């Protein structure tokens, strides 16, 4: 019974609109992540759900009850805060049971709930410690335990892992997923870390400048981003973007041309300005392109910097233009271009690759994975320029199946 509905929620402060006309429909038991850069309104959205902020407009419904103007304590929610916010003058048991004691629960019921939460979080032997005697990870568990004992309809988590070190963060990520599986309670989670959003969520709500950009399962956000912002924000390293123009049989960019039939996509016609997006893993060295069904023509390039990650290598490549035939004369020009960062692509290759710095090579793009965005509006117009159809058709294909 933990469904949360935000209907046209807007929060205005004196000189800025933090959240603008937000509509969310979160189902019972769902793990939804609000993600976006700092200042995008994701925390404000969470605060309006928590009741710590009253929205300027719109309504919030939790478990079928309109709670828009109710105080936090009457909303059947529990919240985990970024800086953990354990009360330093209470031991772990008292911290966890604080909400229950305020609500005058019987002491054996309190003990039962604390014990069961402590068991889930494996903090049974920490119950009589003070917060300052705990490590960061233990404090975080206690903070989550404080939320669990309340047995709320919805958990709200505001960047709960942001203060942990990188290794612990990855560990707690898994723990939270396990917890969600066990409790099957709705979780609304705020983070600026797209990796956290990708790994944990049932659905991701990407926000920017107070607007909801896209809400969809992680892989849909990744494979079919609704616009340039989502495409650039989701995925690390981020998608390559190149400005281009639609021609009769191709999309022309400064560094390369991609074969394309504009009639595939209703919204596009000759002469339209588009942004071509391609993820690093969809750029291949030409000699490895054998398996690709629909590669582009080889694009002449030169490697710049290599970043070995262990399981893959990120290669920065400088495009040299398809027409460049005189290699000797052209080297200087390519060098100059790279100095301005013009037409640089990021490519991800297998770790056994023999590529080195400053090596000439040819690359191809997987045309099935080329995204097209309307440069003016930023909206996606196509996620596959081979089989194509417009974004709308592709999306209905996903929703249907």
């Amino acid at each position, binding site marked *: 019974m933990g469904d949360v509905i935000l209907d046209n929620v807007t929060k205005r402060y004196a000189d800025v609109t933090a959240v603008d006309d937000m509509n969310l429909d979160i189902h019972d038991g769902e793990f939804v992540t609000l993600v976006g850069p700092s200042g995008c309104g994701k925390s404000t959205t969470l605060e309006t759900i*928590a*009741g*710590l902020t009253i929205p300027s407009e719109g309504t919030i419904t939790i478990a079928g009850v309109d709670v828009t103007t109710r*105080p*936090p*304590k009457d909303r059947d*929610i*529990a*919240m985990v*805060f*970024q*800086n*953990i*916010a354990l*009360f*330093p*003058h209470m031991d772990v048991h008292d911290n966890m049971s*604080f*909400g229950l004691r*305020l*609500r005058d629960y019987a002491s054996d019921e309190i003990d039962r709930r604390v014990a069961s939460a402590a068991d889930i979080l494996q903090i049974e032997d920490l119950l009589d410690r003070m917060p300052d005697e705990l490590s960061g990870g233990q404090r975080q568990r206690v903070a989550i335990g*404080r939320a669990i004992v*309340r047995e709320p309809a919805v958990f709200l988590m505001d960047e709960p892992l942001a203060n942990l070190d990188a290794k612990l963060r990855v560990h707690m990520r898994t723990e939270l997923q396990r917890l969600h599986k066990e409790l099957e309670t709705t979780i609304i989670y705020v983070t600026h870390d797209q990796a956290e959003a990708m790994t944990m969520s049932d659905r991701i709500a990407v926000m920017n400048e107070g607007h909801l950009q896209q809400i969809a399962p992680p892989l849909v956000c990744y494979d079919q981003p609704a616009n340039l912002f989502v495409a650039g924000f989701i995925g690390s390293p981020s998608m390559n973007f190149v400005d281009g123009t639609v021609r009769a049989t191709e999309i022309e960019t400064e560094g390369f041309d991609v074969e394309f039939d504009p009639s595939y996509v209703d919204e596009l016609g000759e002469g339209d300005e588009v942004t071509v997006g391609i993820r690093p893993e969809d750029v291949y060295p030409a000699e490895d392109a054998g398996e690709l069904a629909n590669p582009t023509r080889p694009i002449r390039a030169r490697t710049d910097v290599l970043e070995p990650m262990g399981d893959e290598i990120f290669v920065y490549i400088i495009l040299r233009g398809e027409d460049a035939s005189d290699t000797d004369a052209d080297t200087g020009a390519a060098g100059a271009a790279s100095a301005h960062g013009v037409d640089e692509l990021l490519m991800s290759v297998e770790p056994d690759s023999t590529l080195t710095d400053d090596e000439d090579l040819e690359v191809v793009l997987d045309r099935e994975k080329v995204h097209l965005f309307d440069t003016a509006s930023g909206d996606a117009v196509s996620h596959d320029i081979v089989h194509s159809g417009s974004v709308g058709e592709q999306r209905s294909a996903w929703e249907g199946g």
Partner: protein
Amino acid sequence: MRDILSTLIPRLGRSGTDSDRSDAETSERPASDRSVDGDVSAGDPAVRADGGVTDQRRSTPGRVIDAVDDRFGSDFVESLPFWGPPFLLMGLFVYGAIVWNLLISLTDFTNFGSPDYSDLDFEMYTRALSDSGVISATANTFILTIAFTVATLVVGLCLAILIDRGIRFENTFRTIYLLPMSLSFVVTAQFWLWMYNVNNGILNIAIGVFGAGPIDWIGNPSVVLWAVVLALLWQFSGYAMVVYLAGLRAIPTEHYEAAQVDGASTLKMYWRVIIPQLKGATISAAVVLMVFALKAFDFLYSLVSGYRPPNGADILATKMVRESYGNLNWAYGAAIAIILFALALAIIGPYLVYEYRRGHL
């Protein structure tokens, strides 16, 4: 600083051994000291090699200094010029004076002349214990200290919480409340003397509006002590407010939010979550306030422009000065001073122990 040290050290009789010594000890002395002790660089392997035999060539003063340094820390002698003078001044004029006062309190010194140190006993203390004036002054001191401290803390806390709620003109209010703190006791005493005036003081006029009074604030022995507490409260609640405000500002917003989400009403939130976290602020403010209460002498002195405070407001400090300078009972006054000192120590002592345990001292 280095220059002073390098001129001092040869005078201490160790110039001949400096370079040897620095080599022998470079490994255990902090790098910053090396340039002070000598001109040989630490990295010179040729000199370093004979480091093991240097001690046998040391001059006697050098060895004494080393021994002292070993005992009290590596820079004990070198840093002497810096902490020595204040140490001497404090030792002589504060702690020395306390000891001297203790000695005088054991004599029978009265009137003019010199104290006779040959016959020391506790006569003055037994006399104080049976003196109803001292006993009532002690009681008044306690009442004043505790009532004033508690009232000031409570008022200061309330003001701090109100100001911390994000009200308008916050800084203005903060300044207004803190301002009385900057006044001297003498000024406060004059203000309140006028306000407490039986016939035309503003307080009596004010309560007269409601048909009450007039109250003889200063003249009535059972009221005067509370009148004093009120005036001091007015002067110091701003200080308590500032200390509490700093404590409140150190509590993260999330604690308020967490308490709200957990279901606490505003009152319960402050009572169970916020105020317990102000323990540190309470203790430090309380110690300062109690010390001020113990030395409320200047306030009472200015209230009547004399050693004899209004009936019912005599505290140990006024009694002490009156006995000494009014009645020339030097030894008796000294004994009262020691009693007051012991009381102050009983307040400060536990605080010092508390701070020491927490590692702040």
